[in-house]
């Protein structure tokens, strides 16, 4: 082995930390550009209306105002009024995507109507207050279910309230239900709120009239896609636009989309021939950044007398909001996630993707998987209740046995590839989670607490997340003549430590430390292709690209060094930036090798050396790789107030192979706590007129440190054969069974029947209400 360095698998310090801890990292709003103008948006104050006129006469002459632009003003710069659908989808109409600026019908509170460009943000916002719009209010659809009845108003007058319906089915559900020993129904409401990265969205567009070029900086999860859609909307060649990404202060799905604001800001910058910046404030995030929000499930569950699942059938209504910017992937994921890590012989779900006059929904961290998981876990608790079985035992009887791996489900993912769980021993991981929380000892703890008048409960749940979505991710590994090792990729960090993980993968191949590798992410000037940060994919897909590219560059180094040292490549040792022939004093530095490989004008390259030390790989995974997670939670409930206090939380999650265990654990912490928010705190409220009622963090509650227990993460490593690193993604995995496990534990604590609590989030008054209903029943 010519390379001797173990970097993968170690919790090396993050490369990102130093600048972040010193306050030197640059986020979007930290970028300084001379002469920059600031944008704000006039947004719809109502959920549904016909826009009659916009009066900006007073506003235009206010101090600092440079331009106030409506769709009509921007049209000469735009190839279309609407942004195209951003994922390839079939069966969707053309009239469903958002407008850059609304000009006729207003479809949700917060929809962009005009862009105001001023010398300062404050002056731009002052002008909004001075603008007058005339509109005729139309009846809104505030609840997606209400929009499905015949007499309902249309959320958009030009189209029906169903964007699309589809059915997912395998097995003979009807026969299975008919012969099952145990059948029951569940009616489930799930609300997943919004993404709320601590940094909102933002864009800075800097036109270069000398080069006829637009440089865009965006706080985004998808720089290459942003370049494509900007170029398409602005009628420019892709080469006339570059998108670069500064530090991104979290994404969680909200930034995996090209938004109207981004197109409008870029168009305004081109129109004014000046740099324009827009930084989303929190109120705007509440009003106009994508949410995940509501799904309503009604399912029949069928099991045999031993509690083994026979079938689940039913329907689900998904609130897609006022537009479909991306597709129906969120609803599709939720539907296909229901079976999870369990054997489900027959399944049929009719899905209706409906319109409301609310913000569009696309995936937030978890991307529909938590919803499907919640339904399955509630179903298993329902079986335990109906058959008088212990809840963990019902899971054990239904988990896919370890010897059935790889396990092909009869379903396919949206790429068309079969959903095949590739590796893992689910019952073993579940047992590990029970051990870690001392499930067996719970009754003793419960009795001790009861003696003090305290009510403890325990809950468990499992989920499995498809990770590493393709079709590819890009990476170039290049060693310049300085000897610096560079990685360029379309992958997009937003807090996960992607740069560190990719540096580790590259470093191990090149015999250096991660700190010797410089990683540049999501800058379209450095790499032509990329898909960015979504679907727990970056270590899997970009990591594999970096691995393959670094292996190639390693071989180039050894070949070139062999020529310089007059040795065979296999004899050489590559470490700490030097290539040497062991047992001799013959050695060259990476810089020498890079210099030789760069060539000299007119002179021949050394024999066997090709120009440059560089390799580019777009690794293409065959399908998703699936990581299972087993969760257990212990909590206390105050039955008088409904207050739920989480005491301990255990997660066992399969990451295939941990590139950096510390980062894996950090991702799981974050995912669990995001979903604790979904279970107990986060609720995006709208009134009957679809007017948002929770537009501050005082009204919309994120999890805070006092409400979060210690989280015990156990990493399981069942490597996958589907990528050369053997890794599985963990960015979203922590979210999956959290809400279900918590509801189960709450029921357990207060003596509610399992599967009673079927609506999340559960606020204290909701629990008090449920307990009252149970007493009355």
């Amino acid at each position, binding site marked *: 082995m010519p390379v001797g360095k173990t970097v993968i698998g170690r*919790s090396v*310090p*993050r490369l*990102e*930390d*130093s600048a*972040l*801890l*010193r*306050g*030197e*990292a*640059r*986020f979007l*709003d*930290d970028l*300084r550009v001379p002469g920059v103008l600031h944008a704000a948006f006039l947004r719809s104050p109502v959920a549904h209306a016909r826009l009659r006129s916009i009066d900006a006469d*007073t506003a235009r*002459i*206010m*101090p*600092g105002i440079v331009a106030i632009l409506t769709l009509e003003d921007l049209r000469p710069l735009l190839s279309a009024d609407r942004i195209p659908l951003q994922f390839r989808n079939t069966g969707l109409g053309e009239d469903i995507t958002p407008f850059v600026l609304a000009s006729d019908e207003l479809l949700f509170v917060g929809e962009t109507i005009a862009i105001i460009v001023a010398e300062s943000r*404050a002056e731009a916002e002052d002008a909004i207050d*001075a603008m007058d719009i005339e509109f005729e209010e139309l009846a809104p659809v505030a609840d997606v279910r209400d929009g499905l009845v015949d007499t309902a108003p249309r959320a958009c007058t030009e189209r029906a309230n169903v964007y699309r319906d589809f059915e997912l089915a395998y097995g003979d559900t009807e026969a299975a239900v008919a012969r099952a020993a145990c059948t029951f129904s569940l009616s489930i409401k799930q609300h997943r709120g919004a993404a*709320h*990265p*601590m*940094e909102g969205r933002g864009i800075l567009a800097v036109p270069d009239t000398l080069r006829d070029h637009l440089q865009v900086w965006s706080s985004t999860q998808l720089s290459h896609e942003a370049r494509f859609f900007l170029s398409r909307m602005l009628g420019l060649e892709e080469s006339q636009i570059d998108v670069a990404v500064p*530090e*991104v*202060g*979290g994404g*969680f799905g909200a930034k995996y989309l090209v938004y109207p604001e981004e197109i409008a800001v870029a168009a305004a910058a081109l129109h004014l021939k000046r740099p324009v910046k827009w930084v989303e*404030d*929190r109120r705007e995030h509440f009003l106009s950044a994508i949410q995940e929000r509501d799904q309503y499930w009604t399912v029949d569950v069928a099991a045999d007398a031993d509690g083994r699942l026979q079938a689940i059938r039913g329907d689900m209504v998904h609130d897609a909001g006022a537009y479909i910017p991306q597709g129906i992937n969120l609803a599709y994921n939720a539907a296909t996630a229901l079976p999870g890590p369990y054997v489900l012989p027959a399944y049929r779900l009719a899905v209706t993707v409906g319109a409301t006059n609310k913000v569009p929904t696309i995936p937030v961290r978890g991307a529909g998987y938590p919803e499907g998981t919640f339904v399955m876990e509630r179903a298993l608790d329902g079986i335990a209740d109906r058959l008088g079985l212990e809840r963990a035992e019902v899971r054990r009887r239904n988990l896919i046995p370890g010897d059935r791996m790889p396990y092909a489900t009869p379903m396919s993912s949206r790429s068309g590839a079969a959903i095949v769980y590739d590796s893992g021993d689910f019952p073993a991981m579940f047992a590990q989670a029970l051990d870690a929380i001392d499930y067996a000892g719970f009754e003793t703890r419960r009795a001790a607490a009861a003696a003090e008048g305290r009510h403890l409960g325990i809950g468990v749940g499992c989920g499995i997340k498809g990770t590493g979505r393709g079709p590819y991710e890009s990476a170039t590994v290049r060693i310049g003549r300085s000897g610096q090792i560079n990685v360029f990729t379309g992958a997009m960090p*937003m*807090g*996960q*430590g992607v740069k560190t993980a990719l540096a580790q993968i590259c470093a191990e191949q090149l015999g250096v430390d991660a700190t010797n590798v410089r990683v540049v992410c999501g800058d379209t000037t450095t790499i032509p292709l990329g898909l960015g940060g979504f679907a727990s994919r970056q270590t899997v897909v970009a990591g594999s690209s970096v691995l393959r590219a670094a292996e190639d560059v390693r071989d180039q180094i050894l070949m070139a060094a062999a020529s310089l040292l007059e040795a065979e490549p296999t004899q050489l040792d590559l470490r700490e930036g030097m290539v040497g022939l062991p047992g001799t004093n013959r050695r060259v530095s990476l810089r020498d090798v890079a210099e030789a490989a760069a060539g000299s004008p007119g002179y021949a390259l050394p024999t066997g050396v090709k120009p440059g030390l560089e390799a580019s790989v777009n690794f293409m995974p065959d399908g998703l790789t699936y990581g299972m997670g087993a969760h257990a939670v212990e909590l206390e409930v105050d039955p008088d107030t409904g207050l739920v206090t989480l005491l301990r939380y255990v997660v066992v999650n399969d990451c295939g192979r941990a590139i950096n265990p*510390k*980062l894996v*654990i*950090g991702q799981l*912490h*974050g*995912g*669990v*706590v*995001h979903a604790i928010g979904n279970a107990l705190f986060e609720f995006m409220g709208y009134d009957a007129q679809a007017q948002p009622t929770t537009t*501050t*963090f*005082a009204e919309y509650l*994120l*999890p*805070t*440190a*006092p409400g*979060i227990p*210690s*989280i015990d993460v156990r990493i399981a490593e069942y490597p996958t054969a589907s990528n050369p690193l053997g890794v599985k993604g963990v960015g979203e995995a922590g979210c999956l069974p959290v809400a279900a496990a918590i509801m189960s534990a709450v029921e357990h604590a207060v003596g509610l029947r399992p599967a009673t609590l079927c609506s999340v989030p559960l606020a204290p008054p909701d629990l008090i209400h449920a307990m009252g209903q149970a007493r009355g029943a």
Partner: protein
Amino acid sequence: MTDTPEIQHDVTVTVNGRPYTAACVARTSLADFLRHELHLTGTHLGCEHGVCGACTVLVDDQAVRGCLMLAVQANGAEVRTIEGLAAEDGRLSALQRAFSDHHAVQCGFCTPGILMTLVEVLRDTPDIDERGIREALSGNLCRCTGYQNIVDAALAAANAIR
């Protein structure tokens, strides 16, 4: 509504030991003043309504929300921000080191406010325990870390400082 420009006020502050004077309009928040007038962009704004705590800085040794205090109110004050935490020679403080060692930073956007909150907390209650740290961080939102590693880092820093 007026068409006359707003009156500019000179604000003089000492930030991380260095004196600054800059002009701003009266409605400029301290956080915006630090970021846009003094170009100290280490302090971040996450909500601008006083809940998320990302903009927390020390004003005359007390933690305040930089988004809820006006710059003109800070005239004459000593301000400390994240940029002033490391030593002159660049060495990270014990708290900053603990954050790196314990992977208490993910996206890092909330980090400035959390560090400044903890500077005050560890100064005032050096023997704080885990529950105390969690309560002390109740005014700081973090969406990435789930708080666990932040709490661990704060406890480690408390130990190191003691």
